[in-house]
């Protein structure tokens, strides 16, 4: 069975990325919180996953954004660099195009509100619910956080229970704690 030489494989993936033909480019990224999968559509970053299973992940991306999903590092260079800086404590805000086109309605409103929670601060599920004028929807806000397509960049780790308890995190509570420690919000 012939394997494609690494150089040729790399050249094809780069050419595919710059052809403008991809619905989604993705790549894996080693972070202090383990391997992350980063994915971008032509409109912007569209997915960050903890503990990714690329096989399943590409299926989901294909369904949501179109079948031309390919591992291609170049379009993820910017996000990768900014995440590096963030993890090294040298970046407090992300300056990235985000593609939230596949998220609508209430979840979209909540994520847009979430994006405004500043570095190093925390808010509560109830407060976010109130900010989108659904004061009784704290639990639904929790669900939106759990399904956040762009954790870290959309800082759902900064949302805690009304008693200050961390409550939950899509990537596991340990990671939520590490992120809040990194930001100096937790001692």
């Amino acid at each position, binding site marked *: 069975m*012939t394997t*494609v030489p690494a150089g*040729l494989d790399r050249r*094809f993936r780069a050419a*595919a990325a710059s052809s403008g*033909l991809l619905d989604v480019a993705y790549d894996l990224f080693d972070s202090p919180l383990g391997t992350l999968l980063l994915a971008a559509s032509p409109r912007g970053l569209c997915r960050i996953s903890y503990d990714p299973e690329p096989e399943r992940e*590409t299926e989901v991306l294909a369904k949501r954004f179109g079948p031309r999903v*390919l*591992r291609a590092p170049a379009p993820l260079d910017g996000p990768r660099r900014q995440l590096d800086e963030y993890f090294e404590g040298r970046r407090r805000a992300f300056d990235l195009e985000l593609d939230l086109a596949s998220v609508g309605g209430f979840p979209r409103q909540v994520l847009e509100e979430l994006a405004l929670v500043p570095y190093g601060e925390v808010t509560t599920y109830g407060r976010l619910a109130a900010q989108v004028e659904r004061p009784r929807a704290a639990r639904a806000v929790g669900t939106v956080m759990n399904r956040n397509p762009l954790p870290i960049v959309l800082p759902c780790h900064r949302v805690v229970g009304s008693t200050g308890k961390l409550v939950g995190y899509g990537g596991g509570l340990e990671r939520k704690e590490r992120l809040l420690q990194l930001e100096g919000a937790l001692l």
Partner: protein
Amino acid sequence: MMDTVTVPPFERFYETWSGEILAFLRRRLGAVDAEDAFQETFLRALRGYDRLEHGRELRAWAYTIAARVAADVHRRRRPAAEALEGAADDSRPAYAEIEHLANALPPTERAAVVLRYGYDLSYEDIGAALGSTADAARQATSSGIRRLRRKELP
């Protein structure tokens, strides 16, 4: 159900067939030209990928594109003089006559006929493209041709 095979993410298509297609292009063109042809093949595949209606016969589809790219390379290699002397600029006149008919054949026979007479692939390569053997490819080709001769199309 055959009809519900969805188109897989391009990554899976590429990972599954890229090695085999590269080997095929090396056989057709040699190692050096195969590299450019490989890139061209998968870029063409990418261009057409969102128009695929199902995920069946992707291997034969990949071979068809690769064979077309290889034919383009061969055409470019042919000395200009030869073209000026009026050598047939379509080296496949026989195929040109049946091409529009081939569309009506059952999928496997169509792929076999197209790859054999359109792109001059060996039965070994056609077998590989169809996920079967050289013998099965020879059979599919000849039964396709028989059907075309009899105009006995389904």
